[in-house]
């Protein structure tokens, strides 16, 4: 993946000088034509030693005031979550808005929402790796961390939505004294536990394997012996030996190759929770690709949101450049258009199928009592990202940030529309009902964001937020190298500066 020959990227540019277009050198091509070279992935003329210093900074200094402010806000929301969950376990599911017929509400919406967000991180880490997209190196560490924390947030919902959550462990098929009584492998919820746990653990493994060299970097920069010892243990004594790199690269490639089908299969299995049911509006084969595309869409929006913070609030502009942001905006637009296409296909098939049940569900979705939710969903997901046809908008920080937030709002509403509208009016008109979120639903929804950001801020505090070794591999060696005569001590001194 990393190239040792002279970097094909242009040499030194500042973040503000980036245009997003390749640099054209007239007549410099091998046959006398124009030569196009891409702009550098790391701006500011950084050396490899600078990379270490810039990225490890947050993990090495005492947390900045900025970090504390953000962390206390996140902790507050986390506290709201914890309090609400205690009330829920002691009082019962009645404190939420679910009822008959709408037996699933905000918890399942949140579950699908968070799992979906996680998929973009894996796509960046694994799929873009297989496609040799070198710009992924600036964002893949934070994106994969986002995946892990999103999966952690998602994972609480299948447990807390249970009426008797203290028996959740019965879902694990282990030999027991109750028969042994196993699980029903026909049920998509049983598939879910295998899928989500696989996804969480494989993402964690992938992330951790990638972290090993960077943890060694942090260890080598550390002065306090405890810090050195901890990071040494965490990096399993990584020295940078190429014999180890060989196995590492092989494992990385394998993990990327295995994580790629996970991106598609896990959200497919989550979509099966709906697609294998008989409810009109749910019982449709479009759900697996629809969910997967939606997941990537919402995940990229969350990555853009987080990267905007990293660039601005945590000063990573030289590593996550505007070119990175533009590439992500392009992917966002592509997936947004696919999502819009999926909405249109659904609507078309509801009519074309001739199924009265299906046709009614779609008329109800758009024009019934939850039409407002459908409108928000459609606008935020299919219409708002169209602004990115304009290059200037793709490279405008505020536009990127606002659009990413709106996309996530829209994607939350997409799951709301899917879950609620199919349940609230199904086959028998006598069972039709309405659903609305109660204050505890809201508390737990916003509280889950608290959990996510708490974990993410802890990650920023203790671990390198950019994949140091991978970024070094895509920098031009002629620019990034240190002077040959520099001793290691001089290099260390330069780093401190």
């Amino acid at each position, binding site marked *: 993946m990393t190239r040792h020959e002279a970097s094909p990227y242009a040499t030194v540019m500042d973040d503000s000088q980036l245009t997003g277009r390749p640099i054209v050198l007239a007549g410099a091509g091998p046959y006398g034509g124009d030569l196009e070279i891409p702009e550098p992935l790391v701006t500011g003329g950084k050396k490899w030693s600078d990379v270490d210093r810039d990225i490890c900074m947050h993990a090495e200094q005492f947390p900045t005031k900025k970090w504390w402010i953000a962390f206390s806000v996140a902790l507050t929301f986390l506290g709201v979550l914890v309090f609400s969950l205690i009330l829920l376990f002691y009082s019962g599911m009645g404190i939420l808005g679910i009822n008959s017929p709408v037996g699933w509400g905000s918890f399942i919406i949140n579950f699908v929402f968070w799992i979906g967000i996680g998929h973009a991180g894996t796509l960046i880490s694994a799929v873009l790796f297989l496609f040799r997209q070198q710009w992924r190196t600036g964002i893949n560490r934070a994106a994969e961390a986002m995946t892990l924390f999103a999966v952690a947030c998602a994972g609480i919902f299948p447990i807390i939505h249970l009426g008797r959550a203290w028996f959740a462990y019965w879902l694990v098929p282990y030999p027991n004294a109750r028969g042994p009584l196993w699980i*029903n492998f026909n049920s998509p919820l049983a598939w879910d536990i295998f899928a989500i746990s696989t996804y969480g653990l494989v993402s964690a493994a992938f992330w951790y394997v990638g972290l090993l060299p960077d943890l060694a970097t942090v260890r080598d920069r550390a002065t306090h012996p405890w810090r050195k010892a901890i990071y040494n243990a965490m990096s399993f004594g990584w020295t940078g030996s190429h014999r180890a790199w060989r196995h590492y690269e092989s494992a990385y490639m394998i993990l990327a190759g295995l994580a790629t089908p996970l991106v598609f299969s896990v959200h497919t299995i989550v979509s099966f929770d709906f697609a294998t049911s008989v409810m009109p509006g749910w019982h449709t084969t479009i759900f697996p690709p629809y969910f997967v595309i939606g997941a990537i869409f919402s995940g990229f929006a969350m990555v853009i949101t987080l990267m905007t913070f990293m660039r601005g609030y945590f000063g990573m502009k030289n590593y996550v450049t505007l070119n990175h942001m533009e590439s992500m905006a392009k992917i966002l637009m592509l997936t947004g258009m696919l999502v819009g296409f999926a909405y249109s296909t659904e609507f078309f098939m509801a009519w074309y199928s001739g199924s009265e049940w299906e046709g009614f569900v779609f008329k109800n979705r758009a024009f019934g009592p939850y039409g407002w939710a459908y409108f928000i969903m459609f606008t935020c997901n299919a219409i708002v990202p169209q602004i990115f046809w304009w290059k200037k908008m793709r490279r405008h920080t505020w536009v990127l940030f606002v659009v990413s937030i709106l996309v996530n709002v829209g994607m939350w509403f997409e799951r709301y529309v899917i879950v609620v509208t199919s349940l609230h009016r199904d086959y028998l008109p006598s069972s039709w009902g309405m659903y609305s979120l109660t204050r505890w639903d809201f508390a737990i929804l916003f509280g889950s964001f608290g959990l996510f950001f708490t974990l993410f801020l802890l990650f920023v505090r203790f671990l390198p937020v950019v994949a140091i070794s991978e970024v070094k591999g895509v920098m031009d060696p002629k620019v990034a190298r240190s002077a040959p005569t520099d001793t290691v001590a001089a290099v260390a001194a330069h780093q401190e500066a």
Partner: protein
Amino acid sequence: MPGAAAGKPVPNPSLAWHFLRAGWAARLALEPGTPAFEAAWNEVLRSGSFQGPAPAAPPARALAPAALALLAAIPAAPAGLELQLYPHLALHDGQHGNNAWLHEFPDPITRISWGGALSIAPRRFDEMKLANGDLVEVDAGHGKLVAPAYRHAGMHYDQVALPLGLGRTACGDIGGGVGPNAFALRLLAGGRPLSAGLPVTIRKVAGSEALAFAQGSDVIDREARPLVPVTTLSAYEANQKSGTEQQAGGPSAWPEHPYPNARWAMAIDLSKCNGCGKCVIGCQAENNVPVVGRRGIIDGREMSWMRIDRYYDAPKKDGRWDADVWDGPLPVVEEPQVLFEPMLCQHCENAPCETVCPFVATMHSEDGLNQQIYNRCVGTRYCANNCPFKVRRFNFWEYGKAQESALFRALEPRIKRNAELNTRGLMQMKNNPEVTVRNRGVMEKCSFCIQRIREARAEATRDGKSKVHFPDGAVVPACMEACPTGAITFGDVNAPGSKVAALAAHPRAMKLLEAINVKPSISYLTKVRNDKA
């Protein structure tokens, strides 16, 4: 008997026997002790009856016009609006005001539980720009009352109606303060209470009160949703299967599971069902179904395992049912056709609920029942979501026992109400000891009274006959037992000659939602309306 063998008894006036004999002696005009008397006395005792002389013919009677003049003059029909007060179907005049089951039982026509509403004709309702639940003041001259309004299809334009029996204030925690007290509008005139034909005026006032409807939508478009088999007599005579038309299911990819022995099924004859709802209460009594209260019904957490859906046929437009009536009130239909459909767990052969429960809490038994295992249920509610009939009931709160913590009772007032409705004092005594009381977080539904089925099986085994098939009447579920018209038939469909098998095979029989291949065990027989009389 003392002295019976000894011959002549010694009279002892303090013995009741003597008293009795003396009375009969007077009636028979015979002396006690004489052979004639003894023979007649023994005959009376043996047969248990006494044929006396025929009474004289009663005197002829004739209406005395003078007597009629004693009655107060019937008031002339009022020119404007007329109020009708009717006894609440369950609470009657309010004497059962502290009975939670009867409050929870929804009125079969209005489907309102825990309260009552002023029924207003649709045209007048729309003219007054009301919505269900808006408060309306009824002024009868001698009294005023504010009550929530209800758009009652089929009411005469010049009539409004209110149920009596609600609005009690001193009847215990359950019935206190539920609904409007319509006795305030009853007129006492000439020593008699008048509760009909009272001239009133109504006007909308500010505010509204949510009505606890136990049903979602009232309207059904039977062409798009062939869920209630209805036909007319002429159509039935032409084609016996009329009314059962629906989209057929597709072929199955899998072979069916065999049911070689007893297999339970039910048939519900919609021509006999009059919507009285006794089956609902019977089921509640038998199966310890909790009461959720007004708040519970409004929140959509009804627990009744059985319900009687009441539909109005959607109005026809150009000969086709107008399906665009799902939102907003039913267009004004002067004579709505009311359809009742008892709905309970259909015990589907290909139950969508069983497939999706990951915890193995619901599966199909070898005798055709969809089983719900309460102690295994962890409450994902996936089964309830996947049920197309929405007959599964989830325990959102702890109804079976009171929540001890005062903190949580304070944080969540509904917990306190659940305790008042279900567990206070001696209320636990109402529970049927044969049936588990479910705790919170557990799903429940009609079990075809499995406790009665198991008892029948146990009896058969005890008698030394390992019964393969059960005759009619061996198992009678609570709903069938309670039904006054015999609309519900239950039995072993595999038993040769069983009634339920005959009904299921009848041309009038229809199983619901064949299009999605769920294969219910319950057959509905068409409601045949007499259009010829």
